[in-house]
């Protein structure tokens, strides 16, 4: 690192740009070559194919991380280009010329370079792809990493009518699946703890007292040593590339400025290319969004109406109470203005906290390595961290339970026409 931090702005030398790009490509999954960038600046056709595939590989990774689905990527170049275009469209990239690039041929490498640089900034790119070798004793503290609820396109499902009991059977199966997941998870905790416990003292750093599962496997299977070392080696090289890039990034952006100066002008004669929505991106569909907004609006309006009624009722009750009181005593005996102000403030805080709850900002997001330390050896911040995670999870659990219950209650009201109004049938509820 000393080598890198020694580099100060200005003494990068003449070959700074290729160096910076080389560093960037080490930190990126696609590993583009610096030469491609140079060619792209001059809009040379040789760079086109590599840039498309680079854009595709980056966007596909981002997409997969986001949705958690394991669909196969489109293998035809045309499909990949569709995907790239739509993805960029979804995220608001607005260069007309880009979307008109043909799906075959070799035009537009400079346009692609611009798109790449925009992505780099927009998605905070090399940082996003930095990740460490996955350990078994890692845990995702993140609401979106477990059980990704798949958005399965309906055309994948079987057609034909089914009996409702089949649905019930499927739901029961799901319930069992949950249980067995739970059991496996508990066992996993146990085994992890054992491994941590048994390998205490084999520390690598002062802060880590025991081996991870992966490290323990190093001993058990001598074959895995090589593999793990390779993985770590490549991670290190990626990190080194990233650090170097970070130190020289400025050169790149300055260079991009010059690229923008010479950017190609939109040729009005190019064939118009429609952006075709690839199947995988159905979730990012405007039509769906509109429907969703309609639903939310309806809910919000219903809520607003309910609130209006409640407020009217309570205000009226309050007023009569106050009036009745002030006629006798000239002032509110129980409630001073100070108390009223205090109450207002307290409620304000409460509602603000409520709003914060649904912003996921408070979530300790990301991949964490699990470390074991016995109660006596814990520092206070460490205790705090785990307690906090558990607290947040409990809160979330309570919130979701409530949501479910309120949905069930809603159903109950809806179904009251059944339970009360069926002619010739007496409906006995299970809890009655």
């Amino acid at each position, binding site marked *: *690192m000393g080598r890198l931090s020694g580099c100060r702005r200005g003494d990068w030398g003449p070959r700074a740009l290729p160096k910076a790009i080389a560093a960037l490509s080490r930190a990126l999954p696609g590993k583009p070559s610096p030469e491609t960038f140079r060619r792209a600046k001059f809009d040379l056709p040789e760079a086109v194919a590599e840039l498309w595939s680079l854009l595709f590989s980056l966007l596909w990774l981002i997409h997969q991380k986001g949705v958690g689905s394991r669909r196969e990527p489109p293998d035809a170049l045309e499909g990949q280009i569709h995907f790239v275009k739509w993805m960029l469209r979804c995220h*608001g990239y*607005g*260069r007309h010329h880009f979307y008109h690039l043909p799906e075959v041929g070799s035009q537009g490498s400079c346009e692609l370079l611009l798109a790449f640089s925009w992505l780099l900034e927009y998605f905070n790119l090399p940082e996003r792809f930095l990740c460490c070798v996955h350990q*078994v004793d890692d845990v995702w503290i*993140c609401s979106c990493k477990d*059980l990704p*609820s*798949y958005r*399965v396109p*309906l055309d994948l*499902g079987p057609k034909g*009518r089914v009996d409702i*009991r*089949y*649905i019930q*059977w499927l739901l029961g199966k799901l319930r069992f699946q949950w*249980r067995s*997941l*739970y059991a*496996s*998870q508990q066992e996993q905790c146990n085994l992890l*703890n054992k*491994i941590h416990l*048994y390998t205490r003292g*084999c520390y*690598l750093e002062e802060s880590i007292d025991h081996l991870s599962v992966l490290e323990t496997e190093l001993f058990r299977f001598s074959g895995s040593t090589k593999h793990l*070392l390779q993985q770590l080696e490549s991670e290190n090289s990626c990190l080194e590339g990233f*650090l170097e890039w970070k130190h020289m990034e400025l050169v790149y*952006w300055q260079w991009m400025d010059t690229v923008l100066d010479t950017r190609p002008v939109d040729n009005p004669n190019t064939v118009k290319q*429609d952006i075709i929505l690839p199947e995988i991106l159905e979730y*990012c569909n405007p039509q769906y969004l509109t429907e969703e907004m309609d639903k939310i609006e309806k*809910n919000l309006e219903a809520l*607003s109406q309910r*609130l209006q009624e*409640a407020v009217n009722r*309570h205000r009226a009750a*309050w007023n009569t*109470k106050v009036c009745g009181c002030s006629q006798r005593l000239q002032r509110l005996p129980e*409630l001073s203005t100070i108390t009223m102000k205090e109450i207002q403030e307290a409620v304000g805080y409460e509602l603000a906290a*409520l709003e914060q709850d649904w*912003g*996921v900002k408070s979530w300790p997001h*990301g991949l964490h*390595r699990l470390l074991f*330390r016995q*109660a006596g050896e814990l520092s206070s911040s460490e205790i705090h961290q*785990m307690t906090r995670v558990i607290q947040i999870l409990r809160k979330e*659990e309570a*919130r*979701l339970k409530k*949501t*479910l219950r*309120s949905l069930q209650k809603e*159903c*109950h009201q*809806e*179904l009251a026409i059944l*339970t009360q109004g069926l002619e*010739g049938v007496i409906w006995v509820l299970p809890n009655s």
Partner: protein
Amino acid sequence: MIPLASLRRFSLSLRFGWGDASEQELSSGSRAAGPEQQDPAEAGLGGGGGAPNGPRQFSRRAGAAGVCLCYKLPPPDPCPSPRTPAMLPAACSHRLVTEIRAALTACQEKEKELEQSLARCRVLLQPWEGPSPPGPEPAPSTETKSAFSECEPTPKDLKELELLTQALEKALRVRKGISQVQAKENASGGRATTPLVTAQADAGARPRTSNPKASVPTKPPAASQRAKSRVKKPARTSSNRGRALTLANQPHDSVPMEGPAQPCPLPPQGQVPELPTPTPVSVLKEAGATGPNPRPEQAKIQPGLAPEAFLLKDKGTQLQLPLSYKKIASRNSSLWAQVQHLQSNPDPDVAAAKARFLERMKGTFDLPSPSLSLAKVQEEVSRLDQACHILTQHLEETLEGDGELSAASLSWEQEYRRLVTLEGLQAAVKRHLLKLQELREGYRPSRDSAGSKDIPEEYYLGSRTVENFTWDSPPCLGGKGLSGPTNRLVYSSVQELQTMTALKLHVTMLKQQIHLQKVMMEEFLPLVRSETPADPAQLALYRAIHSQLCEAGECFSVLVRDEPSV
């Protein structure tokens, strides 16, 4: 005093009731047949996570109009009996089956992943054999030498021993097949017993650390004795394997919480007396020099020795990472530290250059682009949806007990507080409605803006109609934070870890459940509204819908046909 009609009802309800019971029996039969539905831990989710209660309880209570058979539901028979077919419309069937199957797939994949990592952990906790672990590279050879020079056996003895060990190993390999069968048998019957295992490890450690007292005058007996004790080994190993398996399969049975250097809570010396327990001075010295907390019978594992089975439990503390790994790993962590440092101290010049680039790029954007990108709108929309739910809940809480407690019984403070809360909620809802309006306008590009005329609708709306999807949560784009190894979560007991993971699982489960509930509501409620009930099939359908929607499929109502008495 029971009128005839109600008697009639009674018998009818019984019929309904027993119909259910037979359905129940049928399904439990089918459940027993399907191994994938066997629940490994019937203890269930009630513990740490506070998950749903066990489903297989029957409760019979006298209902209002007869016998109410209310049972917690196991999944009904997959192939509907022809008695009362309650078919769903095609579109509804299609959507529900697809959604539930998707949820199942998600669970199964998660489970598969878990199983894999469980298997990895189990292997580590079973007796280790085969190639002995790689010790620190250069050091062991000299240490081994010194250990040998201190002990009595001559190189010739050692050679013989090694040959013997090799032969035994071969035998062990041959017997493996048998032992695995045994292991299964043991797993069904036996409980984990650690003493054997400890003794086993001792036997493994012994050749190197032979008893000096015994070996000084008579070498041959010592050797033969060693050999004898080793001959027994394979059989023992096999039983150990079986037991170790059991140990791994019964996580709740043995959770030793004390340090590994302390003696085992189970009687550890149970098996030892029959074997000569060596406590040679040399070993004590050696162990004291290397291990952080040595036990006399624990010896350092070194390469070049005959491979012996041992347990991680016994030798884990003495494992030493190879130097090459240590080097790379420490480089790795220092690199991560630097990355972290860079993250927290961004370069202002770079940020400025980036901002400038972005600004210039935006200047070149010539599509009549909406002021908000779809992705952003998506994020906002799901946030608003969540907000709406939370506000509704808060309203319910605020109004709770509104009926019973009249305004008079509330204190002034309480009443004022409620009023202020309601008004606050009202303001929040108004704000959200405004925000929604903004979003609507924001993402729909202004149609009348210049240049948009020649741009087809497809640019905004996609060219094909697509099925709608429901988002539970905004897609997590990996989070802004880094996922480096510097993120650590420290736990101090298994219980704590288990609580945390159980909660995590329950949260995701609830999310799935809520999602499915919403889907079912969308599909089932229109069915109920549209049709008027007539025949028993329809009634069966309603009954099932009611159970799924209101009782999470755990309880059923009883329907009694109230036929006019003739």
